[in-house]
């Protein structure tokens, strides 16, 4: 069945690709071309190889499919994240952090990120605590990468999400276990090159489809002026920033506490959470240690900045512009299998939209009116067309024909060629039809869940766009792009998971140095299993990919960043200061996610017991429930490291000399 849905050519290409990657890995093994070999032999690693390898580790399916989908929902304001990705994630990281990280890592003979912190502060606790945080939370980020890949495979080949997850997990596990962990630079660089080519083609085609750069943007501006499902939380169009402010928005039907929420989601969670968090990513920081000298970093920056621009910049621009395509150009051809949601209210279809947060159906006056079908699920009442586009008589595409009541203004009004305005679509059932969905990217990304409900899934926006707008051959190139993006990131993530539990926790706790390989391997296996379970339980609803990534990045920033940067640059930062700041950063982030930030706290479910059934202890205060923990936890963590360090005795001069000598 799988062979049938995937198609022979796709399978052959993927197998060949895997063989090439395998061959390169073997070549690397035989000729010892890992990063460290370059160092040992004193040979020169080509800066392009270093940059592509770093970039491929940095950028994953999470950025392309997950955040690209979020751009499809919220628009080009996400480009602020691309700016931070380049300026902070590449420029600041390479110019200011790369050299010192490498030097101190070598001075102290540290081989993992927790070991670097632990040795800088001469603290087992620091190393074990950091190791545990990475071991426990990295699988969440790995799951985000997996979900992104699976959403694309499921959509591109019309197979269900769980089958895609099974196939993808087996591929990834095989790659990681057989040799992906060795960090063979050429493999990473090949993957980086494929990603680069795939995204360039995607950008060029997209601008051609929407009529050019200026014309495409202009249309996006115009279309963004229509009422939108996110109007009630401050959406002002895909080419505009969300409404900025703090507090309740006064509307005709009373104050709307959520009126400025979108700005805080885009800026605090998406832009700052991920944009700053990259500096304290364990799997990226260790890469600096494998560099021969500062010169290699300088050279790598040349291609690094462009690479990130082409990755996230293209994903966010294309995600936004997909709205122009879906609203004005898309045609879906297929057999109309059925029309549902026709008749009395009890017969209406309800498409779940934005599962985690209430949606607003009165964008004109900004008031709230949510037709809820469950305590945390909000849905849009509508009539659905079910089409079979693959010829197997099963409906595989679900389009909104029209919305009911308050939802009418914000739902698509699909047109069927040959059907007069106001005509009954049921008269076309069983016939081949051409439908113009006239949907926003978000409302076009409807998926039928296993329980029979329909849901708009952000993670499907990019996959649907690729399948519908791009030529068929591109689907294959994009599949390789995503496989490459996923594999290069996942292998480094699982490497970090394994060493954190083996080298950083097990060895430190038991004192059995150099005997942790077995534990490391088991750790990697547990990491993979955890990531697959999380992906199985979260098949891409809401914007889970972006959120899971943001949680991990934000957690790393608040927990590690002050101790990491403080440790690299300031001799006065003490062990007590570092420990206190890590505990404060971690605890405040955890508290905020469990009790304040609605989207996470409602999923965790503990807050309801303390807040009288509400999903946040600040549920009645405007905006607070969407503010990202990084805005609270990072400043507190920085303050803590400064204050506690000033109050405690600095490390010995000898130790500081070991850390900082030239």
């Amino acid at each position: 069945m799988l062979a049938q849905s995937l198609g022979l050519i796709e399978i052959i290409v993927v197998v060949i690709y895997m063989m090439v990657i395998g061959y390169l890995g073997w070549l690397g093994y035989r000729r010892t071309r890992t990063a460290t070999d370059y160092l040992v032999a004193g040979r020169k690693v080509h800066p392009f190889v270093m940059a592509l390898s770093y970039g491929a580790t940095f950028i994953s399916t999470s950025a392309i499919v997950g955040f690209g989908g979020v751009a499809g929902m919220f628009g080009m304001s996400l480009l602020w994240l691309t700016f931070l990705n380049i300026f902070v994630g590449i420029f600041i990281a390479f110019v200011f952090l790369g050299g010192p990280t490498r030097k101190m890592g070598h001075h102290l003979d540290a081989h993992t990120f927790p070991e670097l912190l632990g040795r800088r502060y001469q603290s087992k606790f620091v190393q074990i605590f950091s190791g545990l945080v990475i071991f426990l939370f990295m699988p969440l980020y790995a799951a985000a990468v997996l979900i992104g890949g699976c959403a694309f495979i499921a959509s591109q080949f019309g197979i269900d999400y769980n089958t895609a997850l099974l196939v993808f997990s087996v591929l990834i596990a095989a790659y990681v276990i057989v040799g992906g962990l060795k960090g063979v630079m050429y493999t990473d660089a090949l993957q980086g090159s494929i990603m680069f080519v795939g995204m360039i083609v995607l950008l060029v085609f997209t601008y051609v489809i929407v009529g050019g750069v200026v014309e495409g943007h202009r249309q996006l501006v115009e279309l963004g002026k229509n009422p939108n499902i996110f109007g009630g939380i401050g959406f002002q169009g895909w080419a505009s920033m969300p409404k900025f402010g703090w507090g309740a928005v006064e509307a005709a039907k009373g104050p709307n506490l959520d009126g400025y929420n979108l700005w805080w989601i885009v800026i605090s969670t998406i832009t700052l959470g991920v944009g700053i968090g990259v500096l304290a990513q364990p799997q990226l920081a260790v890469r600096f240690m494998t560099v021969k000298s500062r010169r290699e970093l300088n050279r790598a920056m040349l291609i690094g900045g462009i690479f990130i621009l082409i990755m996230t910049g293209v994903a966010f621009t294309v995600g936004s512009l997909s709205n122009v395509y879906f609203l004005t150009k898309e045609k879906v051809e297929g057999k109309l299998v059925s029309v549902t949601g026709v008749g009395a209210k009890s017969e209406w279809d309800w498409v779940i939209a934005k599962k985690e947060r209430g949606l607003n159906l009165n964008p004109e006056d900004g008031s709230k009116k949510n037709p809820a079908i469950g305590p945390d699920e909000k849905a849009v009442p509508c009539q659905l067309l079910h089409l079979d586009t693959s010829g197997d008589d099963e409906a595989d595409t679900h389009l909104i024909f029209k919305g009911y009541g308050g939802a009418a203004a914000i739902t698509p009004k699909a047109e069927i060629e040959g059907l007069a305005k106001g005509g009954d679509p049921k008269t076309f059932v069983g016939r081949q039809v051409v439908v113009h969905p006239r949907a926003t990217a978000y409302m076009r990304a409807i998926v039928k869940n296993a329980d029979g409900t329909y849901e708009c899934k952000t993670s499907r926006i990019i996959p649907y766009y690729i399948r519908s707008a791009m030529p068929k051959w591109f689907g294959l190139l994009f599949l390789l792009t995503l496989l490459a993006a996923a594999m290069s990131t996942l292998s480094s993530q699982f490497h970090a998971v394994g060493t954190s539990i083996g080298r950083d926790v097990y060895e430190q706790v038991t004192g059995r140095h150099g005997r942790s390989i077995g534990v490391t391997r088991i750790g990697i296996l547990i990491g993979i299993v955890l990531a697959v379970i999380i992906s199985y339980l979260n098949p891409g609803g809401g914007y889970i990919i972006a959120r899971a990534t943001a949680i991990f990045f934000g957690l790393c920033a608040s927990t590690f960043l002050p101790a990491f940067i403080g440790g690299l640059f300031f001799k006065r930062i003490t062990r007590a200061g570092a420990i206190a700041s890590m505990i404060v950063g971690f605890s405040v982030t955890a508290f905020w996610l469990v009790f304040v930030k609605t989207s996470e706290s409602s999923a965790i479910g503990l807050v309801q017991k303390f807040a009288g059934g509400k999903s946040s202890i600040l549920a009645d205060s405007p905006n607070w429930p969407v503010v990202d923990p990084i805005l609270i936890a990072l400043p507190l963590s920085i303050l803590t490291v400064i204050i506690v360090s000033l109050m405690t005795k600095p490390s010995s001069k000898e130790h500081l000399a070991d850390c900082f000598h030239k």
Partner: protein
Amino acid sequence: MLGIEDFYVLLAYLLCLLSALLCVVYGLINWNRGEEAVLEEDVRWVEEEKEVEEEL
């Protein structure tokens, strides 16, 4: 400009391009700067790293 009316979105779009350009210019200017001699500790570090890799 570029069909984008909102100042802050346009700014983000341009800053993305400019920051990538900054990376290119910085890379070119410093192409030959920053070479460092390989010290004994670097070799020791690499040897241990290699050992861990081999075992994995």
